[in-house]
């Protein structure tokens, strides 16, 4: 139980880290600290200007790194499922690699590919921690899969929608780190993703009283908010001159849009995993034939 609580807290901290990273990009502070891993040769530089955002991001990242190490060790100590222990190692390796990528972006002056990869890995890591939090939950460990004829269809729908969301996030990262390249495709995909989420939510709502329903409704709510945040971010970009693009309004919309995207992806991963855990196809669909029992040895 405490392991699950710690995992959930780490997921929350990772979400804060994603917001902090978003603020770095939105405020143009990525190069405000030109050295790494120290900041102006210190552990704690003056927190002025862009340094406030960049160094705060590094501090939160360091905390998340330490917590991920604790999670990995805790899983090793307390968890019997070998695959979950390995997932802990993957998570720790991921956060270390992410830190190195962060250093590379600073030292090599924000090469586009590295910046985009750093952004996408952040989202992936967040989903991984959310998944670990789910795997250590009672909902997962105590689940009794229920037969459903819609299981296969629902899983496919959730999985492909989540994959589309991930693709959309990659596009979003490209837009952010290339001064707007690919924004047309990103906007088009937004509507495709939105429709897919609506279809997914309506499929889940057909399962009355099911534990998937609340997160599914949350997913739909996030998708609606995200459309408006995306339009706001786009409007700010089009309307404002370059000097104003780091003003409060523009920073808010861009960062909120990016953070909500992370939540949408994580919720999709959560729902998809649960759909595999809570449902099973009926025996007939699984290829198990129920042969009639032979009447045997019935004595007249």
């Amino acid at each position: 139980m405490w392991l699950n609580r710690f995992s959930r807290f780490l997921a929350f901290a990772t979400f804060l880290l994603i917001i902090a990273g978003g603020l770095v990009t939105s405020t143009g502070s990525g190069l405000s600290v030109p050295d790494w891993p120290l900041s102006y040769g210190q552990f704690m530089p003056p927190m002025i200007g862009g340094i406030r955002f960049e160094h705060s991001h590094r501090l939160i990242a360091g905390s998340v790194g330490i917590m991920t190490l604790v999670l990995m060790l805790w899983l090793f100590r307390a968890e019997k499922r070998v695959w979950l222990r390995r997932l802990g190692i993957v998570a720790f390796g991921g956060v270390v690699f992410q830190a190195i990528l962060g250093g590379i972006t600073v030292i090599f002056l924000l090469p586009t590919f590295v910046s985009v990869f750093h952004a996408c890995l952040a989202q992936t890591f967040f989903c991984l921690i959310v998944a670990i939090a789910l795997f250590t939950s009672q909902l997962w460990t105590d689940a009794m899969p229920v037969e459903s004829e819609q299981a296969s269809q629902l899983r496919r729908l959730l999985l492909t929608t989540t994959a589309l969301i991930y693709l959309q996030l990659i596009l979003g990262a490209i837009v952010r780190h290339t001064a707007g390249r690919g924004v047309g495709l990103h906007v088009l995909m937004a509507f495709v993703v939105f429709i897919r989420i609506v279809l997914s939510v309506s499929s889940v709502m057909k399962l009355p009283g099911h534990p998937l329903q609340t997160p599914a409704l949350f997913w739909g709510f996030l998708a609606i908010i995200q459309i408006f945040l995306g339009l706001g971010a786009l409007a700010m970009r089009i309307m404002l001159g370059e000097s104003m693009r780091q003003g409060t309004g523009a920073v808010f919309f861009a960062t909120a849009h990016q953070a909500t995207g992370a939540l949408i992806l994580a919720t999709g991963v959560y729902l998809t995993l649960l759909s595999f855990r809570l449902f099973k196809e009926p025996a007939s669909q699984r290829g198990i034939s129920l042969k009639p029992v032979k009447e045997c040895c019935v004595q007249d």
Partner: protein
Amino acid sequence: MKKDHLIAVFMIILSTVLISSAYAATVTGKVAFEGTAPAPESLAMDADPNCQMMHPDGVNMDDVVVNSNGTLKNVFIYVKEGLGNQNFEAPKDPVVFDQKGCQYHPRILGVQVNQPFEIVNSDSTLHNVHALPGKSAQFNVGMPIQGMKIRKTFTTPEVMVKIKCEVHPWMNAYVGVLNHPFFSVSGDDGNFQIKNLPPGQYVLEAWHEKYGAVTQPVTIAAADETKDIAFSFKAS
């Protein structure tokens, strides 16, 4: 022997004078501004209290400065065409670029290829200097200590190279990197002057960070000619 020495000295002096007079033409002029000057906008320096303290009465943005005589300051004027493949050795003296009052001084400047570009932090707060050339190597250096100096060079001509502070987002400057010394920046009176130009036919360009660039042909017929030209930018 003494006579030979005297003749040699005389020849050296004569050739120096002749060479100098071969490059004695001057192009002068003014950069006019047409239309209504934009209203001054205050610079928000609240991201760094040290910067705010340096300007207790506030400070305005300096991207567009229209002088009281209706001319435009901070226009970079340079010889764009006409020098052919002539080589001009880069001066050994550095061009000094200062960070003072959380602003760059000068905001618009020129430097020759491989000429030392000396960046100074005169402020008691930290800055960093990020140069964004497209053709030379970028650099991003922290300058946390008051009085510290760093020297850099640009290796390829480029008009203009943007320089910004990644700590203080309002700090921007532009550097014209040229392989010759024939450039100037319009001052508080809108005037500019380009000296020691050889005779020839040239195209001069005037560049402003907000209003773009305009060109003008100039012909220098005589070695000691003074040519007066004018550029004009319109309010957008």
